[in-house]
């Protein structure tokens, strides 16, 4: 299995001298399984360079799994060049939206309206299809099995577990650890807590024992205090998840857009020092554009 990061930034692309080491593109990961099956996780701006890299392999069969439909996870999709070339096959997988009653099939159409983009969805030349996934129901792509897991974000967000010949990884997309909406003294607090415990343990078991966990680590705990409900995790919550799940390697990603490379390394070092006990035995790294891991 091979993992490559094409975009690691949260919310908005941040090119510039401050972010050259870790990169300014928004979320996109490329996964290659043992038989070469191509899986892309999210279509942030990083997917553009992934596409350039794929041109020499065309015609391609691309499986794009979207964690959710916030802009920073889909805005590169109209620039995924293989969709304009006949002979390629692109399948977009993703969650449903109970509010609109629709699912991933509207992602391209919405972005490619004529006033926002010069080409319409109907004019795409690749063989495109869309598959709305149900939480917990695995799909097979090539020699890989992918299982979507319901996480916690302002819109429905799936984390994905990818397995192939005994190797495995998990990508959270955007995820904020669940918090109790009731104060401790409140009579509804205990029952709610019980449901949270169950939900958390379902999430942890979905990522249990993975070789690689890639997790939303947008904030420091101090920053998080003013950003509760925004839908993102902290370095500490990611390390906690990795420890609970027994992950061997953890990549912290979805870097906060105002964070320079130096600042990123500083808050990361502090997080490792703060969480020494939980971090023990886990290979913890900052995700960076261009980083490749093969195992």
């Amino acid at each position: 299995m091979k993992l490559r990061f094409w975009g690691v930034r949260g919310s908005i692309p941040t090119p510039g001298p401050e972010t050259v080491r870790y990169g300014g593109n928004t979320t996109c990961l490329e996964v290659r399984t043992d038989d070469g099956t191509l899986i892309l996780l999210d279509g942030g701006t990083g997917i553009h360079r992934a596409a350039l890299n794929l041109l020499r392999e065309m015609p391609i069969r691309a499986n794009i799994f979207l964690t959710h439909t916030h802009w920073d996870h889909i805005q590169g999709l109209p620039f995924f060049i293989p969709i304009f070339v006949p002979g390629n096959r692109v399948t977009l997988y993703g969650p449903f939206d109970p509010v609109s009653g629709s699912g991933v099939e509207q992602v391209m159409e919405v972005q490619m309206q004529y006033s926002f983009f010069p080409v319409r969805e109907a004019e795409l030349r690749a063989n495109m299809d869309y598959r709305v996934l149900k939480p917990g129901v695995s799909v097979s792509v090539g020699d890989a099995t992918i299982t979507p897991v319901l996480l916690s974000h302002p819109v429905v967000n799936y984390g994905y577990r990818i397995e192939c010949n005994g190797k495995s990884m998990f990508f959270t997309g955007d995820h904020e650890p669940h918090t109790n909406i009731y104060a401790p003294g409140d009579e509804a607090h205990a029952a709610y807590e019980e449901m949270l415990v169950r939900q958390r343990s379902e999430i942890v078991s979905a990522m249990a024992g993975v070789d690689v966990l890639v997790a939303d680590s947008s904030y420091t705990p101090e920053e998080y205090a003013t950003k509760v409900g925004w839908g993102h995790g902290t370095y500490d919550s990611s390390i906690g998840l990795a420890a609970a799940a027994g992950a061997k390697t953890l990549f912290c990603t979805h870097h906060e857009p105002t964070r320079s490379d130096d600042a990123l390394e500083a808050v990361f070092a502090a997080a490792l020092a703060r969480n020494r006990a939980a971090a023990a035995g886990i290979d913890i790294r900052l995700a960076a554009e261009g980083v490749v891991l093969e195992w």
Partner: protein
Amino acid sequence: MHFEKELLIAVEKMPAFPKSVQRVLELTRNPDSAPKLIVEVIAKDPVMTARILRVLNSAFYGLPSKVTGVDHAVVMLGINTIKNLAIRIAAVGMIPPTNDAGFDTNRYLLHSLGCAEAARLLAQKLDDADPTEAYIAGLLHDIGKILYALYQPRAFRAALDRSAATGLALHLAEQEVLGVDHTVAGALLAKKWEFPDTLVDCIRQHHQAPPRQGVGRTLFLANQIMKVRAFGDAGNPEIVALPEGLGGSLGNDYEGVAESLAGLDNLLAQAGSYAGMKEES
């Protein structure tokens, strides 16, 4: 006189507009409202709760475990999704499945949801009306027609037919056949539901010369845009020419104004899929 008496009786017969939804809308005006407050409001309304659970538990989404309550729904999907679901469900839930007038409530709902979305975007863009108020105005401006379809079905059918055959504006046909038009009926209903006066006035005046600002202007523009776009249909064939300057900086024709509203097409597509859910929920 006779008509007005019957109208008041009909207004009394209409079900209450869920207070819970009004509260949720109020709470959502403040983005910092505690999730707990929103949950409490929804959970106290058994009909709303049942509808939310029915949507979430439909096989379509295939959630891993059955959602058993509002708290549970929030644990699984988050407060933001549940809040928006409650508002959408309320809009659909107001509409009875059938009526003796043969009034197409699916297309009516589409028209209303479209007006609501457009009015909200317009309020944001023109920045002189409360977006939530504009949304409700769009959603409910034609509610008087539902009252007629339910309690004056034959007369309302006659008005619809006359309007369709002659191109006469529906509210004028209603005045001929029913004595009073749906703006009066709708305003009475909104008053009964204890909506703010601005909203009641807005419903009452929505076929008069459009105001130059505020919720009334957003509703007028939204209503005409939906008719120009033929998005849904509430039985009125008349499109009023855009008064000079009413679109402000957004444009001098309805299509231009519509194009200035980023995201409108997407919202309309969503409204479409939601209106289609009416039968199952």
